[in-house]
């Protein structure tokens, strides 16, 4: 379950067309992590959040747990957030209204080319242009009773550059770490670069992710490609201890052409540790997701196979349309008319209409527009027109196929976002760790509730030669193959 402040910060980044979860190398394996490595709460945790004014948000968290470091039974934190993006509060939904899909960490469909706008429609889609001031976000979290501080500033310098400063401070332990991120993306979201410097060990880092949005698919015999290939790498060097670090990853996202369901494949390699990790994640149906990951180390020859499942439970179907922040993902329905109208005239105001398509679709759409726009030209002779008509006829089946596939993909995406999910079961298991993680997340009377447990297999204890008769509960280990290592409940309420 996402924290309220994580949700606000994520909405801020999406609203400013930054969208690091699709573009940043840090999140390249996010889907597999959220399906397999999801967090299990280990205590009772209650979060109360409020949007106190148009520009400020706050959260109080109370956790009850006997912590080894601080022998306090009750601890937690207070968080305050300020952003100068005035319209953000309109897309931040309370816990009773929020979509469960947005509140939980789940299969993340990648939209590397997030940048699209519609005139007079999604002002927040275009927030960076409409706002004259540089958009920024200030965040502070004070833990009690230890009074440790976490601070963060996100400052959007211009459309393609963003600066983030994170600060961790503890007056009790005289602990002071600052990390500075400078992020840069190219105009078409092809490259996303990050330069990082941390005062902890004077760590310097560089990350890059390249989204190669290929042109028309040859194998599919289509004029557009619904897949994205992303390649990224990271390099780290500690200036104090001169310790290096690096890794490289590849991500391939596509949709099933027949069903429109998305799937993601990733491969990561760390040459220094010799670790290879590959994952396959797919939405197997509207209400289920499956993920598998295989880890292998070429030096120690150790391997691990992990699985993750998600099952969504539905409530009543929504009557109203999507919340504003999901409108971004509804792609290109208005443009279907253009493709369908192959032999007809194309409106000249496609680009003026303010609709910029996903890069996935733009290549094909551009090509599909070539023939009809040439047809409109008054200078073409009759023979040329006939040739064009023949060409149009030849390509009409391909265009219809594009239309069909795009509609399928779009339909599936819309249906997932429109469905009023009320609960989700998450399971994850690892063959090497021999554990089973189970988590239930759902909405209950305006509260977001998350209950989870992690079970481990127990090793059978050797039998003692004691003459005492063994009580039944002493033999529990042999009766129950799994014992709980973690159990917790998390409740969130936001208004």
């Amino acid at each position, binding site marked *: 379950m996402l924290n309220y402040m994580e949700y606000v910060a994520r909405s801020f980044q999406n609203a400013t067309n930054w969208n690091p979860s699709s573009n940043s190398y840090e999140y390249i394996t996010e889907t597999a992590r959220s399906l397999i490595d999801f967090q299990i709460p280990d205590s009772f945790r209650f979060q*109360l*959040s*409020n949007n*106190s*004014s*148009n*520009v*400020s948000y*706050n*959260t*109080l968290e109370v956790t009850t747990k006997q912590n080894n470091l601080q022998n306090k039974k009750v601890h937690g934190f*207070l968080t*305050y*957030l*300020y952003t*100068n993006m005035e319209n953000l509060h309109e897309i931040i939904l309370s816990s009773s209204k929020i979509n469960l899909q947005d509140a939980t960490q789940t299969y993340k469909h990648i939209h590397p080319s997030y940048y699209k706008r519609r005139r007079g429609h999604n002002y927040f889609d275009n927030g960076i242009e409409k706002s004259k001031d540089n958009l920024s976000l*200030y*965040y*502070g979290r*004070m833990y009690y009773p230890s009074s440790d*501080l976490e*601070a963060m500033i996100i400052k959007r310098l211009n459309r393609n550059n963003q600066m983030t400063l994170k600060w961790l*401070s503890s*007056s009790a332990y005289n602990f*002071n770490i600052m990390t500075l991120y400078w992020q840069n993306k190219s105009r078409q979201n092809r490259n996303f670069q990050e330069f990082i410097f941390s005062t902890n060990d004077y760590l310097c880092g560089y990350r890059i992710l390249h989204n190669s949005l290929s042109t028309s698919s040859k194998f599919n015999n289509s004029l557009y490609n619904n897949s994205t290939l992303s390649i990224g790498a990271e390099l780290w060097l500690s200036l104090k201890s001169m310790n290096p670090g690096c890794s490289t990853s590849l991500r391939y996202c596509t949709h099933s052409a027949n069903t429109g369901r998305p799937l993601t494949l990733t491969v990561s390699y760390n040459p220094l540790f010799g670790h290879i990790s590959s994952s396959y994640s797919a939405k197997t149906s509207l209400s289920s997701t499956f993920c598998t990951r295989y880890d292998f180390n070429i030096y120690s020859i150790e391997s691990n196979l992990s699985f993750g499942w998600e099952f969504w439970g539905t409530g009543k179907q929504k009557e109203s349309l999507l919340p504003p922040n999901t409108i971004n993902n509804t792609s290109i329905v208005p443009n279907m008319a253009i493709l369908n109208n192959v032999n007809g005239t194309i409106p000249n105001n496609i680009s003026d209409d303010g609709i910029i398509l996903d890069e996935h679709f733009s290549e094909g759409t551009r090509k599909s527009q070539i023939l009809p726009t040439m047809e409109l030209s008054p200078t073409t002779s009759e023979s040329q027109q006939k040739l064009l008509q023949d060409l149009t006829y030849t390509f009409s089946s391909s265009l219809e196929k594009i239309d069909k596939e795009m509609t399928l993909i779009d339909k599936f995406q819309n249906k997932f976002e429109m469905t009023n999910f009320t609960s989700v079961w998450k399971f994850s298991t690892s063959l090497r760790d021999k554990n089973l993680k189970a988590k239930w997340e759902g909405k209950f009377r305006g509260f977001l509730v998350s209950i989870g447990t992690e079970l481990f297999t127990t090793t059978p204890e050797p039998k003692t030669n004691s003459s005492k008769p063994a009580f039944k509960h002493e033999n529990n280990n042999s009766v129950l193959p799994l014992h709980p290592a973690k159990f917790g409940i998390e409740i969130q309420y936001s*208004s």
Partner: protein
Amino acid sequence: MQFLPSFILSDESKERITKVLNLTHNLAHYGWIPFVLYLGWANTPNKPNLFNLLSPLPSV
């Protein structure tokens, strides 16, 4: 090389610098959240009550 000794700080100066740095750290540490709150208060047109900004309870 005669000017070098003037750059070597005395123990008093070192202590003073440490004190100033600690004070700055404490000021930033405890002043950050009031600063975030002030930004929220100053940039809200109707200047809400401080209690409203501080409290995570839903406002009536």
